[in-house]
């Protein structure tokens, strides 16, 4: 197994309009290894793998598989070159059986009957060789997520994949399911297959890979032997040597409890429990930070408190009063404001002009028009004031929101929510995709809010941000709050808790 590497990428470059997703990427993946590719959201990992799988075409660069240059013009070529991919969002037909999904595109003839028999035999063999057990006649939508993922792996193996790419495979898995997946991946490697694992979770990289490559802002910044690196080094490589965010803030003076969450359980759209019996309080004049790896229930928690998602059980209290099934509109009246995690789909209507977004959710306020009418003059004046106060550029309330940069879009949301002078502020990923200047500005506003005696709940996957802003830190893992720490808790302690390893 010392001959050619399984994959060699040289000079891969890809642009999506103005976005330079992959910049001159070089990567070598050894045969029979598990190779991790790590990086933050938007670092270009998925794009790179989509190019390898023929979903996109690279603008330039070369791909070699087993030493031979290959032009991968579509997924069909990738498959016949022995590449299989397990997508982050499963590419399964939900009302099909396992065997139908596995055969799709590899039916072995115009009629299904013959193919079905050989597919069953092949599934049996894969099951024995790799421990990939699954009932071939089960319908996908009735299977748990972990098994659905196994079907994806089987699909690739059935097509004779020698190289298996997994894109964020554990995002939807419980820790037990993830462990089982890792076991399978090790078996695959030991049988000589090559596995590429894309993730932003450091724990996984350390736990399972042989080699790890780090991507940052479209570039491949380093490749290390996993045994010779550390979580700290990888984390630094991932985020770059950016100026450590130090936020000037004084002592917190927490007051009465404003927001309490009691035994809250919330399901996501698929019916999976994402928040499991969570309780905590937020007091006036403090920032409670929720740390955790993305997908551990933080989003659903925020949405439940904001009234967007109905909890399954438990209650949410404001000033000791249960809010029941209050709508987001009613909660705003109660003084709850919400900077949502996803400004593109929730916080803003991108096709609206800026001023229209400056009142989203508050448009029923008499300040913005009496009775049924909207007072556009008042709204535009108001928007103009916020634009000046928050230095939103370009300073034009009539511009389409989609035409603002990420940082300025976020400022539109922040301005709208903070300028309402709420008593409770929910903040989700306040600085995702935001430039440094705007980050400092937004952080300063958040601290100001605290010092004015507001109750703030902050969710962020940026541990630095949580540590810099929070007065208390709750760590969420797999739907549970696994522990509470003070703001001076070490990064390593928190990191271990976020990985579900120690409390």
């Amino acid at each position: 197994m010392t001959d050619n590497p399984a994959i060699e990428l040289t000079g891969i470059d890809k642009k999506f309009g103005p976005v330079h997703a992959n910049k001159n990427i070089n990567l070598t993946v050894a045969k029979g290894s598990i190779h991790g590719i790590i990086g933050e959201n938007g670092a270009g990992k998925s794009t790179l793998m989509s190019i390898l799988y023929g979903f996109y075409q690279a603008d330039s660069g070369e791909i070699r598989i087993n030493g031979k240059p290959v032009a991968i013009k579509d997924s069909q070529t990738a498959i016949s070159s022995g590449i299989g991919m397990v997508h982050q969002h499963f590419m399964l037909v939900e009302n099909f059986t396992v065997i139908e999904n596995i055969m799709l595109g590899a039916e072995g003839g115009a009629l299904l009957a013959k193919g079905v028999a050989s597919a069953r035999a092949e599934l049996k063999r894969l099951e024995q060789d790799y421990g990939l057990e699954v009932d071939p006649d089960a319908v996908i939508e009735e299977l748990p997520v972990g098994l659905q993922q196994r079907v994806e792996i089987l699909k690739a193996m059935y097509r004779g994949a020698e190289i298996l790419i997994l894109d964020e495979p554990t995002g939807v898995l419980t820790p037990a399911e993830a462990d089982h997946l890792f076991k399978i991946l090790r078996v695959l490697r030991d049988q000589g297959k090559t596995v590429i694992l894309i993730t932003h979770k450091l724990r996984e990289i350390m736990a399972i890979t042989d080699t790890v490559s780090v991507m940052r802002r479209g570039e491949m910044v380093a490749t290390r032997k996993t045994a010779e690196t550390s979580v700290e080094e990888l984390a630094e490589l991932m985020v770059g040597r950016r100026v450590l965010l130090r936020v000037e803030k004084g002592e917190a003076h927490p007051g009465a409890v404003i927001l309490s969450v009691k035994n809250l359980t919330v399901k996501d759209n698929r019916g999976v429990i994402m928040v499991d019996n969570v309780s905590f309080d937020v007091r006036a004049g403090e920032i409670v930070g929720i740390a955790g790896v993305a997908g551990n229930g933080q989003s659903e928690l925020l949405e439940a408190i904001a009234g967007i998602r109905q909890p399954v059980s438990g209650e949410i209290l404001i000033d000791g009063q249960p809010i029941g099934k209050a709508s987001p509109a009613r909660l705003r009246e109660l003084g709850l404001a919400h900077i949502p995690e996803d400004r593109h789909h929730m916080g803003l209507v991108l096709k609206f002009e800026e001023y229209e977004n400056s009142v989203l959710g508050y448009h029923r306020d008499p300040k913005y028009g009496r009775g049924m009418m909207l007072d556009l003059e008042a709204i535009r004046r108001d928007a103009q004031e916020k634009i000046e106060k928050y230095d939103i550029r370009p300073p034009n309330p009539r511009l389409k929101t989609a035409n603002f940069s990420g940082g300025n879009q976020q400022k539109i949301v922040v301005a709208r929510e903070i300028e309402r002078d709420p008593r409770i502020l929910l903040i989700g990923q306040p600085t995702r995709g935001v430039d440094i200047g705007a980050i400092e500005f937004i952080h300063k506003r958040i601290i100001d809010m605290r010092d004015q005696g507001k109750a703030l709940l902050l969710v962020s996957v940026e541990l630095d941000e949580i540590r810099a802003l929070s007065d208390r830190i709750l760590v969420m893992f797999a739907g549970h709050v696994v522990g509470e720490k003070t703001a001076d808790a070490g990064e390593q302690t928190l990191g271990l808790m976020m990985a579900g390893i120690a409390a």
Partner: protein
Amino acid sequence: MSTASVPLPNWINYGLIPLLNLTLAFVISGLVVWLIGENPFEALKLLLIGALGRGEGIGFTLFFATNFIFTGLSVAVAIHAGLFNIGSEGQAYLGGLGAALVALALDNYLPWYLTMPVAVIGAAAFGALWALIPAWLQAYRGSHIVITTIMFNFIGAALMVYLLVNVLIVPGKMAPETRTFLEGGQLPKLDWLLAIFGMKLGAAPFNFSFIIALVMCVAVWFLIWRTKLGYEMRTLGISPSAAAYAGIPYARTVIITMLISGGLAGMMALNPVMGASARLQVEFVGGAGFVGIAVSLMGRNHPLGIVLAALLFGILYQGGGELSFDMPNITRDMIVVIQGLVILFAGALEYMFRPAIVRLYQSFAKA
């Protein structure tokens, strides 16, 4: 790189592209005319003269346009909230019932200007009612509103035929229609409006509903861009997740939108029922509900655009009718063909030219 996300200036989006699409629709219509052995340019000339040449032609053109303004507005209001109401046809049909019941009840007692407001309410209420069930099914049961509104077109048609044949028919008469309304149940002709321009209306049924249609245009414009409800509808239409975030109630907004949409469609009935034939007849809608889809699409769901598109279709209707007198080889149904082609090219194939135009635009912008 894909061309779909490249922004183009307004004059291209709202001017050049629709113009190209329309031109193509007319070129193909011309080919059909040529195919059946007539001169397309001659036909176009006759069509335009028929529609716009005399006061009477203009009166008919505006009469037809009035129908399309109402149905176009009906479709547009729903689209702003992300709902595709293809039930305007049935809602208009039922609206006729509302208008006729009011006219039959009041024409003996009240002058037209007192009957009219009640009839407007009656027509709108019946149209809205016919939209309510599909709206409710969409809001609370998740039934696809496109499918339910199609179904309701047919259910409405069956209901109306039943009522006209068995209930509303004049005893002893064969024709399935109501009695003729007295003057108190008729909308007056707008001959004075044409007289201002020195034209004679003649026999054209151009009537007061045109004014109501224009008022509705202003009202819809106001609703969509100046009211809180309109703001909520637009938010829901563009981004349902942002609407949920903003606390805009889904079910309520869907239902109110559809009531308004159905109400506008219902009001269309005023024009033929109280403005022209002075009685309720079977199939008086005659496809105007479907034309409303094209009108709304072409008018980019904006009242001003809808008026322009409705005028275009009005010209086609009237001019096409005249054309069939002068060129007996071309039947009135040619209008339906042209309508279909316009719907195809301006609607379903809306973006056919876009990629090419984007490339052209980019090469010009660079140069």
